[in-house]
């Protein structure tokens, strides 16, 4: 399965350094989201890029609805890739859901990751009485109904027409890339994302983490970054970037690259 997995998820190994670095994208984009960050790391790292199984560039037949019911299956994929490449230790940069995948992977393999860099991460999106995840149930429902509308249209042979811009502003930034996936996968995956709650396992992480948060991410409040910092088990730092949006690697790659370089060197 090793070689097939590497092909199926478009795994690429580039760069001429000694240390391994994984760049993992979030839902709705694919590894090309890193294209403007990549040049900064090629001289000093062997960079591993891959596509999540739900990315648009992956054959949709590989998306097994029975398997990818929780983030654990995605963690399986990541670890299988790293095993197939013969990696025994690496640094990891994960955006959005890939940040969560990285956290889970580091719990499973405590000595595998030298550093975790988490961009736009959140252990749980829904608000609780004593936890501010950033989203109210009603807002998330709007996202779901937009996706369900797309799904029903898709199933009936009509044009899916809802896009990331149609949902409430609070959720828009986060979910706009979700609509880039196939409607059935999108609906399925968003349920996975909004149902996941990793607060309980954060303490099991021993790897040093750098939490990167954009100051103007409407979707992920600044308090989530501090929550992560205080609850992740290892030595943690927070970097707040004074840029807008949920996709700093697309909107401000040069700035983000500098922050990443600094974080990786520590």
């Amino acid at each position, binding site marked *: 399965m090793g070689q097939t997995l590497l092909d199926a998820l478009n795994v690429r190994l580039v760069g001429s350094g000694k240390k391994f670095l994984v760049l993992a994208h979030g839902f709705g984009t*694919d590894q090309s989201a890193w294209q403007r960050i990549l040049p900064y790391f090629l001289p000093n790292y062997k960079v591993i890029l891959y596509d999540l199984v739900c990315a648009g*560039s992956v*054959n949709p037949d590989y998306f097994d609805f029975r398997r990818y019911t929780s983030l654990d299956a995605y963690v399986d994929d990541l670890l299988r890739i790293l095993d197939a490449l013969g990696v025994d230790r690496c640094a990891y940069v994960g955006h959005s859901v890939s940040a969560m995948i990285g956290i889970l992977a580091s719990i499973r393999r405590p000595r595998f990751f030298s550093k975790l860099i988490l961009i736009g991460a959140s252990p749980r999106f829904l608000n609780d009485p004593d936890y501010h995840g950033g989203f109210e149930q009603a807002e998330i429902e709007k996202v779901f109904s937009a996706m369900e509308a797309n799904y029903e249209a898709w199933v009936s042979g009509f*044009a899916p*027409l809802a896009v990331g811009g149609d949902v409430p502003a609070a959720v828009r930034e986060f979910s706009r890339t979700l609509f880039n996936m196939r409607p059935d996968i999108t609906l399925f995956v968003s349920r996975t994302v909004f149902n996941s709650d990793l607060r309980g396992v954060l303490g099991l992480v021993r790897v040093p983490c750098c939490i990167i948060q954009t100051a103007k991410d409407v979707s992920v409040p600044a308090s989530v970054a501090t929550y992560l910092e205080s609850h992740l088990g290892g030595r943690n730092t927070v970097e707040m970037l004074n840029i807008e949006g949920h996709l700093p690697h*697309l909107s401000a790659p040069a700035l983000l690259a500098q922050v990443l370089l600094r974080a990786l060197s520590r």
Partner: protein
Amino acid sequence: MTGTSYATTINDLPDVILSTIISTISAVRSRNAAALVCRKWLLLERSTRTSLTLRGNARDLFMIPSCFRSVTHLDLSLLSPWGHPLLSSSATAADPSLVAHLLHQAFPAVTSLTIYARGPSTLQLLALHWPQLKQVKLVRWHQRPQLPSGSDFTPLFDNCQGLNSLDLSSFYCWTEDICPALESYPVISAKLTHLNLLNPSLSEGFKAHELGDVTRACPNLKEFLVACIFDPRYIGFVGDETLLSIVTNCPKLCVLHLADTAAMVSARSNTNGEGFSPEDARITIATLIEVFTGLPLLEELVLDLCNNVRESGPALEVLNSKCPKLRLLKLGHFHGICMPVESKLDGIALCQGLRSLSIRDVADLTDFGLIAIGRGCSRLTKFEVQGCNKITVKGLRTLTSLLHRTLVDVKIAFCKNLGATSSLKALEPIQHRIQQLHIDCVWASEEQFENLDGGEYNFDIYKLDDGCDLRRPANFMKFDGDGTDYDGSCPKKKKCKVSYDLNFSDIQVNGNGIGYANGSEQYGKTWDRLRYLSLWIPVGELLTPLAAAGLEDCPYLEEIWIKVEGDCRHLSKPSERDFGLSSLFLYPSLSKMHLDCGDTIGYAHTAPSGQMDLSLWERFYLIGIGVLSLTELDYWPPQDRDVNQRSLSLPAAGLLQECRMLRKLFIHGTAHEHFMMFLLRIPNLRDVQLREDYYPAPENDMSTEMRADSCSRFEDALNRRIFD
């Protein structure tokens, strides 16, 4: 004789005649239909087919049919996946030399080849098998590989000694690749008669000394098209000396096309308030006259500059006598081309032989100049005017009525006083004969004409002139023996009396034949012969006012080209939900569309709050497209320049899928596989391709939309469907 009488059919003709008839058919679908009639017709059709474009996946090349052995022109540039490195050993599973051999077996008679040459390896094998190639067009929108200069051409020049035509207008390379290659192969260069170096992807164009080198190497050129720079602030700009050297080196030129690279990239020009560019070109009138004198065989001349050539009238006056065969003329930034004093024709108006005239950014062209052109260039079938801000609807309308016998193709673009409504008003005199048209969709509110009815739309040309009495038909509107009079009912020698009225609704022609009837009730808004319409529209504007502007009734309009241009990063959400494509429903014959949003720039994923992502813009543009019964569509998605992304979004895929009658769809950008899969629901869709024909085309590695595997899977799924 009972019942069964056999009528004589076309099949009873002798084979030789039948073969000749079939060989004249050029439309591919008609040929395919003819080939299905019976075995005899199949053989005749196959043996007379001389031109073939291969579509299909490159990995399936071993399945090429061998029945097309008469093909002399072969186009291999559209094989899937687009930009595939054909015949390179890494790309295919099959041995490349075997595939090359198969191609030669299937098409032994090829003399003209169009091919996507990602690198020299493609041609290395093919040129060996086709040494008799005479015309070659190379296509490459991907990056130039890191190889010594000129390597792209070595296999071709080594093997094809009979080469006489080379077209690099879609081939990205460096200017330094070409001159040395031509100079190293003097036998080939001396034989070249057609050389096309008009490539928009060259950022700087050819320098003056390179032009000199190329023309010196190829003295027998008859057709030379090249992108260069005329701006004197750049090193290697083209000026007097260069022009003269071109003429001295290649006296046999009948097509000369020199375009400034800036003109090729963007339509709008950088002019000051008066309409002049900041710098003048270093081209004098005396040089121009020498150029014209040195090229007596000239039939087509294009000097598309972005720098001023002032007071060029006197040079153009001699054009007619020095280049009597000149039929097509295109000039950019030539000022003073027509400054008539009273009724005396001057400048370009003296070029009576012209059939096609295209003028751009002539700062001082006025209505009087237009009228003089209309009177003097009396055989024009095609007229294009762009960026001339002093002309108005009056002058243009007089021009079209003067040319109403011949004019069938008009383009009006970026002229301040000629938005959509005025342009259409100006075209009323040829409303019943115009076949091709371009206008800008500028719905200016100043175009509410106060004097709309019964007002002055034409100049009273009798008043223009004191001396010559234009009412005397002998001086005017001579119909000579050209036979260009389409109506034919006005016999050659007879002179028809023409009179012009001030009321816009009347153009009366007395005498036999051509009669627009008197009275405005006959003058409905029907564009009887309009087949092709091209529109330019700034981003954010709606299309819906088009019919009201004057294009309500176009019964035979079959093809439309819409270009949307602008930066939507500065715009807020449009007021309407849809752009208005569905309003084109009122053209019943519309079947082909090119929707070009490629020069619309925006944010793919990173729109700041308050602005729209490109997915929303695509939805805005494409809503309603399913209502039209399009059979062919070319679509250029908007682009996010920051990430070099021109990609189909979800709503775009969904909306394109609504075009149920579509047979051919070409998307000039990238798309995710699962979006392409939406398109499989279109029942008769047969030919789909993602053509990234812009520079730089995305290398497959980094752009993960539509990798080669995705492309193959999609095409397999497309071809697996069974058609009724």
